[in-house]
Structure formats: C-alpha cells, structure tokens
C-alpha cells in the first residue's frame, strides 16, 4: 500500500474509527491496478495541495466533514424517505454559492475517488471503455466536472487534437478542476448547462453524478441529446437512494434511471451498477442502500 494511503488510514483510524472499518474493507478489495493509480494520483494531489499551502491532513478533514454531512443526510432520509432538499434554489444557496462548503466538498469527493470502492469501480468502468471511443471523439464536453478527475483521464486517453470543453455552475469547482487538471487544451465555462448553447455538437459527453442535482433530470438529458452529435456517446453516472447535502432528485431504483434515459431518446450501449455497501441485495433493498449506476448511451436512431 502506498505511503499516502497508509497515512490516510492511520489518521482516519484515530479520527473516525466507525468509518475506518469500512475503509479497511474497501482497501482490501482493491485490485493490483489500484496501488499504481493511487500512487500517481496522490503524488499529484499532494503537490496540488502544497501549491495551495495545504496538506494531506486538510484533505482528510474535508473527507471526514463530507462523510459527516452524508451521515446526517442519511439519517434524515431514513426518517422521511426523502432528500432534505428538493429545489435547485435551496441547494444553490446552501452549497454551490458557498465557497467554504464547496471547497471541502470538492476535496472530500476527490479523496473518495480513491477511498470509496464504488467510486473506484465506476472510474475503472469509464477508463476501461473510453479508449474505444478515442478515434471517433473530436470534441469532448464534460458537464459538472467537479474535481476534474474524470476530465484529467479523458485528457490522457483521448487524442491530443480533441477539443475539450467544461461547463459547470460552480466557480469553486471550475477553479479546483482547472488547477488540478492544469491543461491549456480545456475551455472552461461558468454557466448553467441549460443556458449553454454555442451551436456546437459534441462527440463525447461526460455527466458524472449530476442528474441527482437537478430538478428535471429528463430535461437535462434532452438538452444533452441536443448537444450530442448524431453518432456521439454520452457517459453518465447517478446514484439511487443517496442522500447528500446537494442531492435533490431521488431515484428509488435503477429501473427508474433506465426509464428516464430511454424517455430522453437514448439507448444503453453498456451499463454497470455498484452497491455502495458490502451487503446482500435483499438488505440493500430493505435499508435503501445507495447503488451507483453508470452507462454509455447513444441516441435512439
């Protein structure tokens, strides 16, 4: 195990022994490719933190704060069966427009990329399939780039002449992604994707964990259908039953996600879903355990 992961485990064992147990199980699950990828990532990430006069301890605190938020939201979800917010206006003022919250949230999510089993599995699904679209992708659009980790891999995998565009509603998110990715090929747009219309069509669009953040996920998918070239591919991920401080649209199960995708004019080329806890499907359904779903979509012709 690499030195950074070791350090993170030791700190979390002290600061949050309840979560430490899950973390140890997650790390025991990871495959051979994990160490190499995690090592490369944390070297880059620690350098990035240092450039912002921060340390890995800061990132660990962000991660634990994000987990504390999720615990509170999960409790509310267990009590009511609903997410605590249901409108964009609510979460915009509560989260996106608050740079302090956005910063710990983005760092927390970035850390989770290598500490949550399902995030790692999902990322492998993306990086495993993306090369097969490299020859046909001349333009790449990412909507809601978050911490920029998927974008950084797309920049590595796709042709160097590919045009890269990002649209995100959060200035904090764009700044973090821009610093982390550090590649002049990317054009960043601080804009709501519903207002984004530059008359261009994109060959590949990535929409990582965004649908649950909007009031009208079908409307967003229809918008992306319009932005996608005729033979283009949309990669998206979204969870079921995943309370968080900025989730407003609740998918109760995977079938609901598939249905909305089809109603927006897409067909599924490949899909995967991952349980976020190490439990049986029966227990997952009983306790409404989150499932992270991802698919590569093409337009219905």
């Amino acid at each position, binding site marked *: 195990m690499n030195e950074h992961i070791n350090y993170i485990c030791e700190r979390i064992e002290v600061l949050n*022994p*309840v*979560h430490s*147990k*899950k973390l140890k199980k997650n790390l025991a699950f990871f495959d051979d490719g994990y160490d190499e990828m995690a090592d490369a990532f944390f070297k880059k990430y620690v350098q990035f933190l240092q450039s912002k006069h921060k340390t890995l301890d800061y990132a660990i605190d962000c991660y634990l704060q994000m*987990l*504390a938020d999720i*615990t*509170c939201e*999960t*409790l509310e979800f*267990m*009590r009511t069966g609903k997410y605590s917010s249901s409108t964009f206006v609510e979460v915009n003022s509560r989260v996106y427009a608050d740079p302090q919250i956005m910063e710990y949230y983005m760092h927390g999510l970035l850390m989770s990329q290598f500490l949550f089993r399902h995030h790692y599995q999902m990322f492998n699904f993306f990086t495993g399939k993306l090369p097969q679209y490299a020859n046909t992708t001349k333009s790449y659009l990412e909507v809601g780039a978050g911490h920029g980790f998927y974008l950084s891999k797309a920049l590595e995998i796709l042709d160097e002449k590919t045009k890269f565009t990002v649209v995100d509603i959060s200035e904090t998110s764009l700044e973090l992604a821009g610093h982390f990715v550090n590649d002049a090929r990317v054009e960043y747009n601080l804009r709501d994707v519903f207002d984004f219309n530059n008359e261009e069509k994109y060959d590949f669009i990535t929409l990582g964990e965004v649908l649950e953040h909007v009031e009208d996920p079908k409307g967003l998918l229809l918008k992306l259908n319009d932005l996608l070239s005729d033979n283009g591919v949309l990669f998206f991920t979204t969870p079921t039953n995943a309370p968080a401080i900025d989730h407003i649209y609740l998918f109760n199960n995977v079938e609901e996600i598939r249905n909305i995708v089809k109603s927006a004019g897409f067909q599924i080329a490949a899909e995967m879903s991952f349980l976020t*806890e190490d*439990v049986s499907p029966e227990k997952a359904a009983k*306790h409404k*355990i989150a499932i992270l779903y991802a698919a590569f979509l093409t337009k219905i012709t």
Partner: protein
Amino acid sequence: MDKGEILAKVNAIFIDVLDDDGLVLTYETTARDVEDWDSLNHIQLVVAIEKQFNMRFTSREIQSWSNVGEMVNSISAKLN
C-alpha cells in the same frame, strides 16, 4: 429513567441491530470494541434509538459521541 436503564435499552437495540446476542455494552465501549459497529450499522443504530426513545438527535450530538456513555448522556439529557 436513570442511565443504567438507558444503557440496558441501548444494549438491547445494539443486540437487535447488530444481531449479536452476546453483546454487552459499558459506558466506555467504543466502535473499536464492537466489530460490526461500522458506518452502515451506526445509522441503523441511531434510527432505532430515536424510535425507541421517541426523540431526534442533531448532527452535532451524533458527531460528538466517542463512546456509548456519551450516547447515553445525550439520551438522558433529552429525557430529563
């Protein structure tokens, strides 16, 4: 209800949620001492305790617990 009675009820909830008949909690018990007291079960435990005692905890209270005794103190403060 005194703290001893609260501890006994909390112990019964832990036995039920964690499915461990032999579990004996003390005020000093922490998550390190109970193998199945993980993040998923922690949520189930809090929900079951809230239901049993007909109360709700704040996020600050939940995050402040470092052992069973502190959990019992929170319950006791709300009951009395």
